[in-house]
Each structure stands twice: as C-alpha cells, then as structure tokens.
C-alpha cells in the first residue's frame, strides 16, 4: 500500500512537472511572441500549476495520514486457490496407500488448506456456491498449477497423519515394512546430542557433506545447493536453510565416487592421493577435511550387485558408527528400485536393512524408496540405477519437477531434512547455535 501511494505521488508529480516544462511550447503554439507577455503568461501558468500541485500534495498527505497502512501478518494463513493441471486421484491422507477420496479433474478450483510433514502433499478442499464441502482430500502439490503467490510457509502443517497405511499394502510384508517408514523423519534427541558433541569436537554447524556411489557423486545432487541461482517455487520456507548450508557443498568431495561401495569407502586405495593421508580411507579423509555437522549417506544401488544384505548391513553399520563417532549426524537414504528388474527383492531387503539400522541408532532416514513410488519409472533414469534428472543445473521447484525426476525429489527431501535438523538442533537463521 505504501509503495502504491508513493508511486502514485511520484507519478502525479512527474506528470505536473512534465506539463509545466512544456508550457512555453504550448504558449508559442498559441501565438505568444512578446517576451514580456510570455513571461507574464508563464508566471501565471506556473502559479496556476503550483497551486494545483500544492493542493494535490496536501490531499495526498492527508490521505496518507488518515489511511492506516496494513502490514501483512506472517502468522495469518491465506487460503490459496488453484487448479490441477491434470486429472488427479484425491486420497484421504498424504500418500497413495491412504483410501481414495475423490477424483479432481483438471481446471476445477480447489483451496489448499494444509500440507504434510514432508511438504510435497497438500490437502485441498472444494466448496460449492452455498459453502458445502464437495471434496476434501490430499494430492501431490506438484500437480497443481502454481504461481509466485503459492507459498507453503503460509500453509499449516499437518503432522498427525502418517505418510502411509502399511496395512493397505497387498504386495507382501517386506513391502509393507518399507511403507511403514515415514518419508521424512523426525530428528531424535540422540541426534541433538550428536550434534552438540560435534560442535564440541570442532565440526562446522553450517557444513554438510555426502557419502556414496555414483548417485551421490553426481553434481546435480546436493552440490547444486551451492549454485547462486535457485528457484524454490512454493517451498519458500526452505530458503534460510538453503542459504545456511548451500555454500558448504561446493568443491571436491572425496567420499562420493563412481563405483564406491560400502566396502570401498574404507579402502585407502580409493582415497584422493592429493588430499588424503597415507592409509586414510575416503570416509575418514572427507570427514577430516570438511568437519561437517551432517552427512548424507546413500549406498545400495551399487552394493546390491556384489554383496549380500548381511554384508551390506555390516558395512552400513560401520559407516554409521564412524560418522557418529565424529559427532556428525548421519542421514541415510533408502534407494529407489524397479519391480521389473532382477534385483528387485534384493533391493527390498537392502532397504529393510537401512530401516533396521536407522531404528537401531535412532538416526534420520529419508525414505526415498517410498517417495519415488509414484514417479514415472520410480524416478529412475533409463539405466534403471541412477536417478533421473530434470536438466536444470540449479535448484528449481517451481515446475513441480519433484513429481517427475528422482534427483529433484532427492534434493527437495535433503533440503527439507536439513531444515528439520537446523530447526531441531536450534540454529537460527543467522547461523548462531542457540
């Protein structure tokens, strides 16, 4: 409002000034050639304009003085009305294992009233003209038309509904077990203690790193947090977190390499000889160099081809323990897999190991496996191993790519996890531990 008033005044002042400056030209056109007369007429004309200018300014000042300038209250929730751009199944909860509630056809206006804990599902309501609720349920937010006014910071969070109802899974107990793990975990008290211990050991609260195979080595995953451009779309509330951690993921990473496995991450032969000490493993080297507070760990797509789930579990435990020992919060991922491939059940067993380990050590696990179930090809690239990428070399969530590409979803979940950690351990937006 203030901005509008200011612009209004400036525009009017400019308009009058412009008119005044053109007075001589106008007078000349009217045939006033006598200089004295011209001056006189000019003076009269300026007097005329000056009076109007003065009056106008007075009026504007009075209006400004009397009109209270409304300041947007960040705590006030503004319902955001939108439409779906494709036909959607509406569920009774924020996940596809909840019962179906309705169908939302493209173009039908709905109002967003809640979002889930993870942040990528929203509850939408459609009311008839007389106010009767005609539809009420949950959809993936990425399938809704959105503009710059769609801000999830203004949408209340529903933490009471689970992501999934495993009892509704008909594909076997192993699959149901994976669905019982939330996509986005809470941060445990144990991890708050680990964070504090890390600070005592000299770890940097705003430094994060990644550990893993080619899925982690990709510069499109996590590394792009450091890119100066970003477009968070409706996830505006993640901006402080991005700015806080983003710069730390630029540069070399010695613990995420193509071909790395849960065994090899301990093998000094795989360590960067220019950065690492003799007999130092890639994992030890990365942690020594960076001293991060959070480490994103993703192994499985490679390991599943060369070891048993027992070996995988043992190695993952060693990685988790090595991370915790250094006061670093390990954030582990389950990994996506395709039911049509030979190693499907093996990958299910590997992911169940991750779940078990996360529960044992009370470490956060991002359930990427579940989160990718609704994505085309489960978020996987054509090779069925790596995650598909949108093509953008900076974070971009305004096109809803998180519902189509595994890497975009992975980045969103990682950033959302960091937001959860940052707020839980008590880091304010200026980066001061509280």
């Amino acid at each position, binding site marked *: 409002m203030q901005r509008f008033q200011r612009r209004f005044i400036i525009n009017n002042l400019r308009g009058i000034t412009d008119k005044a400056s053109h007075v001589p030209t106008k007078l000349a056109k009217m045939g006033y050639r006598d200089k004295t007369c011209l001056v006189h007429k000019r003076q009269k004309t300026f007097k005329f304009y000056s009076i109007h200018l003065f009056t106008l300014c007075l009026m504007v000042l009075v209006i400004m003085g009397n009109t209270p300038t409304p300041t947007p209250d960040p705590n006030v929730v503004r319902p955001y009305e939108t439409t779906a751009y494709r036909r959607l199944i509406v569920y009774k909860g924020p996940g596809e294992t909840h019962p179906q509630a309705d169908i939302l056809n493209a173009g039908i206006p709905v109002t967003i009233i809640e979002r889930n804990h993870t942040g990528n599902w929203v509850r939408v309501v459609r009311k008839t003209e007389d106010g009767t609720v005609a539809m009420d349920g949950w959809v993936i937010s990425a399938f809704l038309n959105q503009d710059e006014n769609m801000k999830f910071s203004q949408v209340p969070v529903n933490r009471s509904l689970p992501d999934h109802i495993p009892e509704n899974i008909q594909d076997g107990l192993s699959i149901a077990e994976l669905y019982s793990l939330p996509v986005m975990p809470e941060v445990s008290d144990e991890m708050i203690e680990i964070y504090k211990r890390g600070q005592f050991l000299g770890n940097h609260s705003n430094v994060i790193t990644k550990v893993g*195979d*080619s899925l982690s080595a990709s510069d499109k995953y996590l590394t792009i947090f450091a890119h100066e451009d970003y477009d968070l779309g409706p996830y505006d509330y993640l901006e402080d977190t991005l700015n806080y951690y983003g710069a730390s993921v630029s540069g070399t990473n010695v613990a995420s*390499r*193509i*071909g790395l*496995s849960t*065994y*090899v991450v*301990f*093998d*000094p*032969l*795989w360590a960067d*000889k220019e950065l690492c*000490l*003799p*007999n130092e493993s890639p994992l030890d080297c990365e942690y020594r160099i960076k001293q991060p507070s959070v480490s994103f760990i993703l192994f499985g797509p*490679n*390991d599943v*081809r*060369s*070891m048993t789930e027992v*070996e995988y579990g043992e190695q993952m435990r060693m990685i988790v323990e090595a991370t915790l020992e250094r006061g670093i919060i390990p954030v582990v991922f389950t990994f996506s897999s395709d039911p049509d491939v030979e190693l499907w059940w093996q990958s299910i067993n590997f992911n169940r190991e991750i779940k078990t380990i996360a529960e044992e050590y009370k470490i956060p696990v991002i359930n990427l496996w579940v989160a990718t179930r609704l994505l085309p090809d489960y978020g996987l690239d054509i*090779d069925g191993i790596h995650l598909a990428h949108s093509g953008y070399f900076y974070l971009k969530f305004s096109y809803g790519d998180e519902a189509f590409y595994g890497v975009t979803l992975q980045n969103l979940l990682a950033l959302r996890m960091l937001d959860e950690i940052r707020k839980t351990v008590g880091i304010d937006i200026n980066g001061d531990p509280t």
Partner: protein
Amino acid sequence: MIRLFLLIALVLGMTACDTPAEQADPADMVIQYMQAKIDGDKDTLAGLLCADLESTLTREAQSFATVDAVLEDATCTSEGDVVTCTGAIVADYGGEDTEFPLTSYRVVQEDGAWKWCGEAG
C-alpha cells in the same frame, strides 16, 4: 654314493625352484597383490596380506567388485620395507574411466615371506 649325491642334488634343485617369498623381490609381490585385488581373488590376497590387516581381507577383495578394472603400466621398486610403484589401476564404470594411481606401500616379512601391509606413511 652316486645315487645319494643325485638325490641330494635333486632335493636342493626342487627347493631352489620353489623360491620362497622372502627371497623374491617384494616389488613383484606388490604387483601380484594389486592384480589379485583387481580380480577379487580372495585366496591370493589372503596369502599376501600381512597379519595386521587380516581383518580387511573381504574389503580388499571387494574393492573392484562393481567395476571392470585393469592394471596399467605398473612398475615397482623396493627399498627396505617400502615398495614404490608407478602406473595405475584404471577402472571402467558405465564407460567412464577412473584412475587410481599406484603409490608407495609398506611390506613386511612374515612366516618367511613378503606381505603387503598398506600404504607407506
């Protein structure tokens, strides 16, 4: 007498053919170790790994399990208990080559044979 002499000569000859590792060049042992690591040959690695690193045997055998790797231009020379190598292990993963340069390694004599015992610090 002649038969006895021949028998002794034969035994000595056989012993000489089966050269113990302690008499072999540790540089050759390191190259043999690296090749076994690339091949994931656990039995050979077990025979060449020093006692201190026995617990890492499975890890050593798994090192290149998920990639195709070859030893390229490997040359080693020994000096005391350190073997210094040049060349590299080149691993191919999905058409992309990753190079692991060889470095200096510590070797120890155990049970009368040279054993690989990690990188030289």
